[in-house]
C-alpha cells in the first residue's frame, strides 16, 4: 500500500509538471482572453468580466458594444513571469456588468492591439433571467412602486408610493433620481421607516411618497426606479482557520434592485364651465369678516380662505363682486401647503380691508370657486354665504383707522397695516423760531471754543508765576530789586550819617540792585566788573559808563575824596536807578 501511495504522488507531480509546461507555453503567446464569472444571472445581480491580455503590458482592451449592460471599470493588474528563462507579461482588466434587460446576451469579441497586431477574444453568451424566480415575499430585499390610479384626469393628484423592503443588513444604498416627465411633482414628507410583516415575514420598510400632477393628456410613463446597495453575504465554505471563526468569513455583494415601470393614461377634463379655476380635487371656500357692525371710514377685514386636497398650488384669488359702497384694499395672501399627510392639502387665504364710504345695511355677496372633482368626474362649485354688514355714519372728522387687529378672538395675531397716510402737521407755535444770524453764530461758536483755552492758559500762567515767586530766589530778587533799592536810596537821602558812610551805603545799594537784576552777588563786585556785566546784558555804553562813573565817585566820597553834596550823588543814583531799570527790563 505504501508503495502504491508513493507511485500515485509521483504521477501527480509528473502531471503537474506537464500542466505547468503546457500553461507556460500557452502564456508565452500574445492573446486576449475574456471571461465572465458566471454564465447565468438575474437582473438584480452583477457580473464580473475579466479581460487578460497576454504578452503585453501596455495594451488596452476595446470592449464590444453591449447595450444590455451598464459597464463600470473595476481596475487592472499586471503580472510578469519567467518561464524557461523567458520573460512574459500580461495585464488583466476587470469590468462590472450590470444587466439592464433579460434574455440571452451575446458578448462579442474583446479586441486589443499588441505589437501592431489586432487580437480578439472568443465571444460568449450570458443568460440574464428575470429577477429572482422566488416570490417577493421570500426574498431578502425587494422594492415596489405603485400609484393611486393609472387613469387620472389631467391635473388630478396621483399618489406615487415607493417602498424598499429588506430583512438583511445592507449598506451604501443609492437610489437613482427618477424623472417624472410630464408631471408636476410634490414630495409628501420625508422618507418613512417602519417595520411590517409580509406573509409572516418581518421586513424593514423605507417608504417614499410623492404627489404627481399630470400636466399632459395621453400616455405617460413613470420609469423604473433603480436602487443599488451592498448586501452582507456570509460565505458558505467552511472556516479554515481560527481567525476566520473569530472575524467571521463574510463579504459584501452589490445588488441592483429595480421597480417596475408604470404606465399612466391621462384623461382630459370635460369642457369646463365659466369661471373654472383650474383646481382639480376637493375644495371648499370660507369667508369671514372681522366685524359686521362698523362706521363710515372704519375698516374691517374680509378674509377669504380656499382650502382642500389636490393641486393646491394653483389656488388663485377668488373674484369678489363689485362693492361700490366700499373702498377695498388688497393684501398679500397667506399660503400653507401640508405635505405630511397621505395626500397634498393646503389653503390660501386672501385678506381685504373694506372701508365703507356710505352708511346703510350692506351685504358681501357670495364668493364662489369652481373646481373639478375627479371622484365624480364633474365640475363643482363651492361658495360662501352672504355676509350682512351694518354701516353707521361716521363720528367726528376722523377719516380712517390705520390699523386693526385681525381676528382678535383667535388669540394674539400680528397687527396688519391696512392703509397708510402721512402723519399730521405740527401746530405748536414754538416751531416758529428764527434761525440765528450765520456769521454771528460762527463768531459765537469760535469764541466759545477758544474761551476755555484762554482761561486755562491764564490759570496756568498765574500758577507758574506764583511758583516762581515761592521757589525761584533769583526771580524774586530780580522782581523786588528796584523797589528795594529805591526805598533804600530814599532812606539814605533823609539820613544824616557822615558822607563816608552815606557814600558806602549808596554804592552798596546800587551794586546790590545790579546784582539782583543780573542774578549775581552785587556787593562783592567791583565797579569795573559791574560795568562789564551791564554791557554783557545789553545796557547801553553811555548808561554803563555813567554807572561806572557814579560808583567811582561814591567810592571817592566814601574815602573823603569828594563830598556827597557835589552834584547830589544820591539823587543822581536815584535817576540812574530808574534808567537802569528801564534798560534792564528790556
Amino acid at each position, binding site marked *: 500500500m505504501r508503495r502504491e501511495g508513493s507511485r500515485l504522488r509521483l504521477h501527480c507531480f509528473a502531471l503537474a509538471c506537464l500542466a505547468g509546461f503546457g500553461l507556460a507555453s500557452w502564456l508565452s503567446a500574445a492573446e486576449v482572453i475574456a471571461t465572465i464569472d458566471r454564465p447565468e444571472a438575474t437582473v438584480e445581480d452583477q457580473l464580473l468580466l475579466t479581460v487578460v491580455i497576454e504578452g503585453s503590458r501596455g495594451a488596452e482592451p476595446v470592449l464590444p458594444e453591449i447595450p444590455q449592460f451598464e459597464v463600470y471599470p473595476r481596475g487592472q493588474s499586471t503580472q510578469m513571469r519567467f518561464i524557461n528563462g523567458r520573460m512574459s507579461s500580461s495585464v488583466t482588466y476587470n469590468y462590472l456588468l450590470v444587466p439592464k434587460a433579460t434574455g440571452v446576451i451575446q458578448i462579442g469579441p474583446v479586441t486589443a492591439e499588441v505589437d501592431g497586431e489586432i487580437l480578439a477574444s472568443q465571444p460568449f453568451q450570458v443568460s440574464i433571467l428575470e429577477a429572482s424566480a422566488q416570490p417577493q415575499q421570500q426574498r431578502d430585499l425587494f422594492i415596489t412602486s405603485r400609484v393611486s390610479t393609472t387613469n387620472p384626469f389631467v391635473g388630478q393628484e396621483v399618489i406615487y408610493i415607493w417602498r424598499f423592503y429588506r430583512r438583511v443588513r445592507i449598506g451604501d444604498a443609492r437610489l437613482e433620481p427618477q424623472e417624472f416627465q410630464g408631471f408636476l411633482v410634490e414630495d409628501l414628507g420625508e422618507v418613512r421607516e417602519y417595520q411590517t410583516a409580509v406573509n409572516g415575514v418581518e421586513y424593514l420598510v423605507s417608504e417614499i411618497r410623492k404627489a404627481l400632477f399630470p400636466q399632459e393628456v395621453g400616455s405617460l410613463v413613470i420609469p423604473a426606479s433603480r436602487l443599488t446597495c451592498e448586501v452582507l453575504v456570509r460565505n458558505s465554505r467552511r472556516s479554515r482557520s481560527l481567525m476566520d471563526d473569530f472575524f467571521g468569513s463574510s463579504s459584501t455583494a452589490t445588488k441592483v434592485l429595480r421597480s417596475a415601470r408604470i404606465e399612466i393614461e391621462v384623461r382630459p377634463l370635460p369642457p369646463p364651465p365659466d369661471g373654472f379655476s383650474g383646481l382639480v380635487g376637493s375644495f371648499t371656500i370660507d369667508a369671514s369678516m372681522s366685524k359686521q357692525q362698523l362706521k363710515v371710514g372704519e375698516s374691517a377685514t374680509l378674509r377669504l380662505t380656499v382650502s382642500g386636497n389636490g393641486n393646491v398650488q394653483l389656488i388663485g384669488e377668488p373674484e369678489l363682486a363689485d362693492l361700490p359702497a366700499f373702498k377695498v384694499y388688497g393684501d398679500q395672501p397667506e399660503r400653507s401647503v401640508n405635505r405630511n399627510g397621505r395626500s397634498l392639502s393646503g389653503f390660501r387665504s386672501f385678506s381685504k380691508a373694506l372701508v365703507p364710504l356710505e352708511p346703510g345695511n350692506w351685504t358681501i355677496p357670495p364668493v364662489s370657486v369652481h373646481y373639478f372633482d375627479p371622484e365624480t368626474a364633474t365640475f363643482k362649485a363651492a361658495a360662501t354665504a352672504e355676509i350682512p354688514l351694518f354701516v353707521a355714519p361716521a363720528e367726528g372728522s376722523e377719516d380712517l383707522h390705520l390699523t386693526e387687529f385681525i381676528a382678535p378672538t383667535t388669540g394674539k395675531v400680528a397687527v396688519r397695516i391696512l392703509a*397708510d*397716510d*402721512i*402723519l*399730521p*402737521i*405740527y*401746530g*405748536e*407755535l414754538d*416751531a*416758529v*423760531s*428764527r*434761525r*440765528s444770524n*450765520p*456769521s454771528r*453764530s*460762527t463768531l459765537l*461758536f*469760535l469764541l*466759545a*471754543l*477758544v474761551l*476755555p*483755552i484762554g*482761561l*486755562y*492758559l491764564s*490759570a*496756568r500762567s498765574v*500758577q507758574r508765576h506764583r511758583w516762581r515767586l515761592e521757589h525761584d530766589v533769583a526771580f524774586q530778587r530780580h522782581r523786588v530789586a528796584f523797589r528795594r533799592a529805591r526805598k533804600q536810596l530814599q532812606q539814605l537821602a533823609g539820613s544824616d550819617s557822615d558822607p563816608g558812610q552815606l557814600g558806602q551805603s549808596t554804592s552798596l545799594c546800587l551794586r546790590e540792585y545790579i546784582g539782583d537784576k543780573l542774578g549775581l552777588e552785587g556787593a562783592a563786585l567791583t565797579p569795573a566788573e559791574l560795568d562789564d556785566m551791564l554791557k554783557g546784558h545789553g545796557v547801553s555804553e553811555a548808561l554803563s559808563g555813567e554807572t561806572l562813573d557814579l560808583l567811582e565817585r561814591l567810592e571817592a566820597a566814601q574815602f573823603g575824596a569828594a563830598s556827597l553834596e557835589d552834584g547830589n550823588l544820591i539823587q543822581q543814583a536815584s535817576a540812574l536807578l530808574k534808567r537802569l531799570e528801564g534798560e534792564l527790563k528790556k
Partner: protein
Amino acid sequence: MSRWRISSLVGWVVLALHSHGLQASQVVTAEEVHTELSESRPPLEEIVAELPSVELHGELHPALAAEIFLKANAAYEEGAYAKAAAGYQRLVREGFDDGRIQFNLGNALLRNGELGRAIASYLRSRAASPRDEDVRANLDFARQSTKDAIAPPEPSEVLSTLFFWHFRLSHRELAIGLLAVNLIFWAVLGLGLVWPNRELIRWTSLLLLVLLFTLATSLLVHRFLDRPVAVVVPQELSAHTAPEEGSVVRFNLHAGTEVRVQDQRPGWMRVSLPDGQQGWIAEEWIELVYR
C-alpha cells in the same frame, strides 16, 4: 502730559479757524413755488397776497411769523395745500426754517402733488431733527410714490450703527456737544493744575480728548465731505452726458428721485446713481439738500 496738552491746544486753534461758518445755512431753499405742476391751483401771487406782509426793519416780526404759521396751518386743515405751502415757504425764506416748519411744508407740498419738493423738505426736516420718527415716517411714505426703482443715497445699516453720533445727531447738536466737551476738557485740565499727577484727571482728560476729536471729525465731515443730495422736481428729468442742453440723454429720472451730487458747474450738476451711472442734470429742476 504737557506735550499733548500743547499739541491739543494747537489742534483746537486750527479747528476753530477751519470751522468758520459752521452755523451757516445748511439748507438751500426754493426761491419760489413752481405752480406749473398743477394747472388748477390759484396763482402764487394771489396766495401770497393773502398772507401778512408787515415787516420790521427788513425782518419779519416773530409775531407776524406766528400769524403766518397759524394761517398756513389753518389752510392746510381746510385742504388749501398750495396756500399752506406758500405760507411755510415764506417762513423758511425769512429764516424761520425750523425742522418742524420744513415738515409741515413737506406735508403741504405732498398733498399738493409736488412730490420732489415734498421729499426735499422732509430731508431738510430730517437734517434738523434726525431722530424724529414722524419725519422718517412721512419721508418713507413719500418715497413710496416715486417712480424710479433707485434706493435713496442713505448710509448702510452697519455704518449708521457704528457711527451713530454722526447720523443720529444734527449739525447743531454736534456743534453744541463739541462746545460742551471742549469746556469740560479744559476745565479738567485746569483741575490738573490744582491737583497735579492725579491718575483720574489724566485718564478723564484723555477720554475727553478722544470725544472731542470724534465730534470735531464728525463736524468737519458734515461741513466739508458730505455731498449734497439732489431731489428731482419735475415729473421727468433728463440726465445728459455733458452739461449742455443739446447733449445726449443718458437716462431719465422722475419726480422725487434722490441722487448724490458729484460735481457742480454753473447751472448743471453731475449726479450719480447707486450703480455708478452718472449724468448731468439742470440745476433749475432739482432741489439741493445738504445734510
